[in-house]
């Protein structure tokens, strides 16, 4: 799960269908879908959002959405 | 006396005009805050409000 990665770890997205419909759409708009490589840049405290990097762009999503995105650790 | 009339007339005339314009523009809301309002020719109307009713 993407939400389980630690800061600095990389992974490849395997399944994104668990995430909220709107979040999925937005990530898709930003070019993040199954097969994209992502790297967790930082995790904010108290269950706050995570900042991920993919193809050179940084995106913030909530931890609970990140926990619904399956990744394969790379 | 003439000077008084001219100064007074100018002040009250300008004040009335400025007041009228300000109220008119404030009522338009967002366009009053837009920085290209003088050169902008879009008509400042919101046509799609169905998302929020």
């Amino acid at each position, binding site marked *: 799960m993407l939400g389980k990665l630690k800061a600095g770890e990389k992974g490849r997205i395997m399944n994104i269908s668990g995430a909220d419909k709107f979040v999925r759409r937005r990530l898709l708009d930003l070019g993040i879908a199954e097969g994209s490589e992502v790297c967790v840049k930082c995790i904010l405290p108290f269950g706050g959002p995570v900042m991920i990097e993919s193809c050179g762009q940084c995106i*913030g999503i*909530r931890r609970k959405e990140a926990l619904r995105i399956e990744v394969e650790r790379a | 006396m003439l000077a*008084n009339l001219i100064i007074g007339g100018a002040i009250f005339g300008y004040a009335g005009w*400025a007041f009228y314009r300000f109220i008119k523009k404030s009522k338009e*809301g967002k366009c009053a805050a837009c920085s290209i309002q003088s050169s902008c020719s879009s008509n400042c109307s919101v046509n799609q409000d169905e998302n929020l009713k």
Partner: protein
Amino acid sequence: MMNIALIGNPNTGKTSLFNNLTGSYEYVGNWSGVTVEKKVGVFKNGEDQLIDLPGVYTLNPLSKDEGVVTNFFLNEPFEKLLNILDASQLRRNLHLTLQLMEYGAPVIIGLNMLDVAKNRGIQIDIGKLSEALGVTVAPVVARSGKGCDELAELVTGDFVGMGKTNLVYYGKAIEDGILRLANMLDGRVKLPIRWLALQLFEGNSYVKDYLVKYVAIEEIESLILSVADSHFQLSGDKQTLEQVIYRKRSETIDKIVAASASRKDNKKVPLTEKVDMIVTNKFLGIPIFLLMMYFMFMLTFDWLGFPLSDALDAFLSGPVTAGITAALAAAGSSQFINDLILDGIIAGVGGVLVFVPQIFILFFFISLLEDSGYMARVALVMDRLMEAVGLNGKAFIPMMIGFGCNVPGIMAARTIETPKERLMTILLTPLMSCSARLPVYALFVGAFFIQHKALVVLSLYVLGVVVALILAKVFSKTLLKGETSLFVIELPPYRMPQARALWRSTWDKGKGFVKKAGTFIFAGSVLIWLLAYAGPEGANISMDDSYLAALGGIFAPLFAPIGFGTWQASASLFTGFLAKESIISTMNIIYYVPDEASLQGLMAVHYTPLAAYSFMVFILLYIPCLATTATIYKETGSKRWTAFSIGYALLIAYLLSLAIYQGGKLFGLS
């Protein structure tokens, strides 16, 4: 004359390009959603019009600002499209380009941010990109304006390639579906069928609503279902039509990118990421934000702003007043005119102008936040807190903008995707202390809290935010229940703010304040002075017998429990509804003093420090100004919500001031 639409992904430099092409000074920032509505400017050739649209990733909208773009394509005439691409994010940007080409209007591509791409090891062959798409591609540097003249010539010129409208083959099922829609519409629609059909299959609700005007909704829905079904029959994969269309476009884009771009591995860690490690750090993120805000307030109110304001005050009340007095004497003016100008206009307008330095300093910092890219990080850092009260981090951006002026803040709420969160943000942004409220604080802290100026003002700003957050929690538990909250934010790379852009952006925000002083504050001062000069018993009477005193006196008892039951205070609160800074000009006229310093001295007689704080809190919260109210009405489209926004603000302001004043008295403060 041609209409040319400027379109591209968020944060690709559209607005910078718009400014360079049209020579206008539109507001630019480094966060998604700077432009939330369409804006029109005229090209430097003086003929053709350029339409700046909000940034979108696709023509299938999620939020309201994106809906503006889809509506534009459905309803408004235009001749050409100018598509601006971010070279460092070519793949994502081309998804939009493919949709534009399906629309079939002539397209020209401006390729921006080649330098960013180069830093990341990406080389783009412009010739090959142009060939693959079948349209003209021109490199530009939107921020500096390099290449913009050439681009302007290309765009306004006669010849523009149409591009290849069917670059993507979507598979038999979808392609057949397009033909079936064409048959159903039977030439009744002017818009390109292929584009309409693909948007419909992707689930674009705006396009669906448009088509319902021509074809029965049942037919449209059964068409979509049967296309999805036949796709499944033919290919056997379970993807939705939206996914299939996206995948097919991606495949085509991969081919285009493979042919036109090459990348070397660049192992260097970009500066942006190093900065991000600090400012969005687990422990340091929020403290850094607060520290920056504190620094901003110290500079605005203490270190820099205060001495500047004092100097300006001395100048206005000294040489300027003396000069005007001499000029009036030379013209032989009567006592009435002298009083009008010196006690009315100079007191009223000058009292507001004195705060121009402080307001510009504040605007400078807001521009810096916007231009550097830190704004989006603030949204990220604040998201956890905002989530707890039923909003999302993005709602913090309109609130920050609201510190400058509430009107653009409310407009910026358009970028928020869910209607509930957007409405809440619109309703709560007026609680952010805008720059017009700043003179009131500056006056009172100068009179009562000289030792802790910045801290007291900071406490008011924080109070506004805290009240907004508490109310958000209350509203989301009562009035606006339900609906899941959503938060995905793009964090643009940091960039070094340019002096020229910063100044321009500061000036754009601040000039309204100066202009208002010359127009509305001037007029208001004349009116207030007249009301204070005349009374039921005639003109030139004691001010306590004037119309203004009578008017303020009606409501004064209401304000007695919160510490300022004088007719002077309630009279100035009235004028504050039209524009908050007129509170100060009204007070200057009422208290009848030549400069700011003596007004502060007089204040100490009329208010206690506790009453002064209570008054500032009341000013902070009591009512959105007229322009803000009008914007709330335009943006919500609802009289009820507009009335609500005024009503709840009055109530909260009164209750809070009451608690502060009465509570403070209980604790023995005065």
